[in-house]
């Protein structure tokens, strides 16, 4: 069957990037965090809650609620609704769906929001109940959770391509440097490569600073058409291109590439840009080795050259390849599904010039990626988006 040509995003914009600052543990519910984010969206955009006519929600800890329960909970009357349980790919997937909804005028303003709480026992419960394959065939094996699953992937990847812990560590160290400029980052102490290397092992070769810290928080943005944003006087970033892929390369015995590699040509062609044109890149950094994989699969270098790429570039805010400028999940924290939004929301602030202390000068073209759902032996969901600020 011939693959059809996708309709370009025509005048679709993203506005009002919102972050509700994270806390390590919260006694509040996921609904509380999502409510805060919706409130911030409305306040920041200067609209009424009744102006929101589309809602897209992602959360691991809402209990028996889905998007529909939230409409009544928060007094929203929407004509377009989605709940996206795609973990680290939720933001890109949500953005894609919302963009098409407003493009087709099924909705005018879609609020995309992700939020999770973190009670003392939340993380263990999420691990235990992640998926059927996980329950049947992963969790009973040492109960190492994502750390153990990604350890297997990392070990194979590092051995196959001759990547050392030091190579991977550069990513984590650079992100910590970025995080020190972000007042909302949970990690506030500097991290040296020596400290990274000396960290205690969690699930070899994953060590402490390869892991994100589970926390509570929320992130959100609005998706609308250009004219809607203009009528509201809202600064907004134009959506140029997106990709999304699930269960790619199922025949690879172990994961050495994500679904991006399948669609990367389309991502840049649709946006009409090259990897070199990007001012900022926000990858999904549940583990730095996955970020290294993304540098390859998103076209910044060839497969197997990720380590060399990291050695050759400065990934900090003032560096030649500003990456995960907020500090990323590794240093800000992983607020469940909000972790998927973290990079995109920070990227939007960057191209809108509102990133404050983490602002990259003259950033106008950004890329954010997502990765999620280690259902069994690999992350299944991947996605990426390219967006441009008003100055471009």
């Amino acid at each position: 069957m011939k693959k059809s040509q996708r309709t370009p995003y025509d005048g679709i914009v993203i506005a009002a990037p919102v972050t509700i600052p994270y806390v390590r543990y919260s006694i509040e519910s996921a609904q509380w965090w999502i409510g805060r984010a919706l409130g911030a969206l409305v306040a920041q955009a200067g609209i009424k809650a009744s102006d929101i006519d589309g809602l897209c929600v992602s959360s691991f800890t809402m209990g028996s609620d889905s998007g529909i329960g939230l409409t009544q909970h928060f007094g929203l009357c929407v004509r377009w609704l989605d709940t996206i349980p795609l973990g680290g790919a939720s933001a890109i997937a949500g953005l894609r769906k919302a963009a098409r909804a407003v493009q087709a005028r099924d909705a005018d303003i879609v609020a995309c929001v992700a939020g999770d709480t973190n009670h003392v026992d939340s993380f263990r419960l999420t691990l235990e109940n992640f998926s059927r394959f996980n329950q049947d065939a992963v969790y009973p094996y040492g109960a190492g959770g994502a750390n153990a699953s990604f350890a297997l992937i990392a070990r194979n990847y590092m051995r196959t391509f001759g990547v050392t812990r030091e190579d991977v560590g550069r990513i984590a160290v650079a992100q910590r440097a970025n995080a020190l400029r972000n007042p909302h980052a949970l990690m506030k102490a500097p991290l040296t490569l020596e400290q990274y290397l000396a960290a205690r092992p969690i699930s070899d070769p994953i060590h402490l600073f390869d892991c994100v810290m589970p926390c509570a928080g929320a992130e959100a943005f609005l998706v609308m058409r250009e004219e809607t944003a203009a009528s509201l006087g809202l600064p907004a970033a134009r959506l140029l291109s997106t990709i999304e892929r699930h269960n790619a390369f199922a025949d690879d015995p172990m994961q050495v590439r994500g679904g991006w590699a399948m669609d990367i040509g389309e991502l840049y062609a649709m946006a009409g840009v090259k990897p070199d044109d990007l001012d900022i890149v926000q990858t999904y950094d549940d583990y730095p080795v996955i970020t290294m994989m993304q540098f390859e699969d998103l076209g910044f270098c060839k497969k197997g050259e990720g380590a060399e790429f990291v050695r050759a570039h400065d990934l900090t805010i003032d560096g030649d390849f500003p990456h995960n400028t907020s500090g990323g999940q590794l240093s800000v924290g992983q607020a469940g599904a909000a972790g998927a939004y973290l990079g995109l929301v920070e990227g939007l602030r960057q191209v809108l010039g509102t990133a404050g202390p983490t602002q990259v000068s003259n950033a106008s073209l950004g890329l954010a990626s997502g990765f999620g759902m280690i259902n069994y032996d690999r992350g299944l969901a991947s996605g990426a988006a390219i967006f441009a600020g008003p100055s471009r």
Partner: protein
Amino acid sequence: MIDPIKPPRRKNPLLRTRLPASPPRPRSRTSHGFTRAAAEGRFMLQRCEACGAFAYPAREACPSCLSPALAFADAPRQGTLLAETTARVPSDVYFRERAPWRIGLVKMVCGPTIVAHLHADCAEGAPVRMSFQLDKGGQAVAFARPEGDTPNMADDRQWREMTADPKFRRVFVTNGRSLIGQEAVVALKAAGAKTVFVGVAEPWRPFAGEDLLRRQEGVEVVTLDAADEKSAADLAADIGGKVDILVNTTEYVRAGGLLDRKGTSIARDEIDQAYLGFINLAQAFGPAMRMRGADGVNNSVAWVNILSVYALANWPAFGAYSASQAACLSLSHCLRAELRPGGIKVMNLFTGPVDIEWFQTVPPPKVAPRAIAQAIVSGLRGGLEEMYVGDVAEEIRQRLAANPKALERELDK
């Protein structure tokens, strides 16, 4: 290569006994196809009847052709270890206590990749043989061992969590008067059991094989009439805290069914000895065993029942006996559930007619008591839950699976 485990030191009675924890138990219903395989020591995967592809984890449709016809079939055990990791800070209590815990991803020759527990001698890139084992939660888990045998292989820490190896353990064989009991004592001692307690009712009455039993080093003859509640309780008060494996060799075989017997006195004896004897043993020894499921190298691990295969399908020639065995089989499932929190395995060993006096008129093949004793040891070493010993038992199992009605008609002759 792993070091042999050391004989456990005498337990310090002042220290708290660590309570057993269970590894994560939830499984999908389909996934219990592996439980069945593990119970019998088979290696089975789902295989698509339409396209022949093997699949794992358990699925409801074939990932190659979407056919729903995914039957569990015996599968080749060979695979290659692609990558390993050692979980050092698991979130679950059972594994947290046993960390570091080593797992790996194995590419099977027949196609699927399997996350598996690893034997310490498994190396990345090297071939492994896969099995399904029952873990301390009683659930099936994949376990990869090196392709060939390695020194002290069975002493591997993670492997020993899956098995009930008699090595260094204290075993209680409940009936030393029976040939099966006597052979079991010899086999379990030879398998490295530290002590074998062996029960004898009315010990002042001499019996064949008594000398041999009493002469063996590490064998302690104890007084037990399983049918007597007080006898079982008294003995448990003495040795109940030292029984790591209990082998129920109660034997009470009488020919006859319903109509050719007069009254219920023989049936009552059958019930007293086999069924109520089982209950007495369970109530006397079960609670302490369940408490000691994580009590070091010589923790409590298994309860073995020797059952007639006619527990599964009544053999009218021994019809009332068959019924008493069926009652014991049902009780064993109850016991399995109740011992489960302790991680204690309940292994049922099904046998055809045994080569003993009470089956004198039954034509061969009959099962040698020694074969049953050897099966007990191999079943414990393999961590099995169901075993069929001898040709008759295996044949009954297959005929029952094929057509229970045919079996019922054909046992009536």
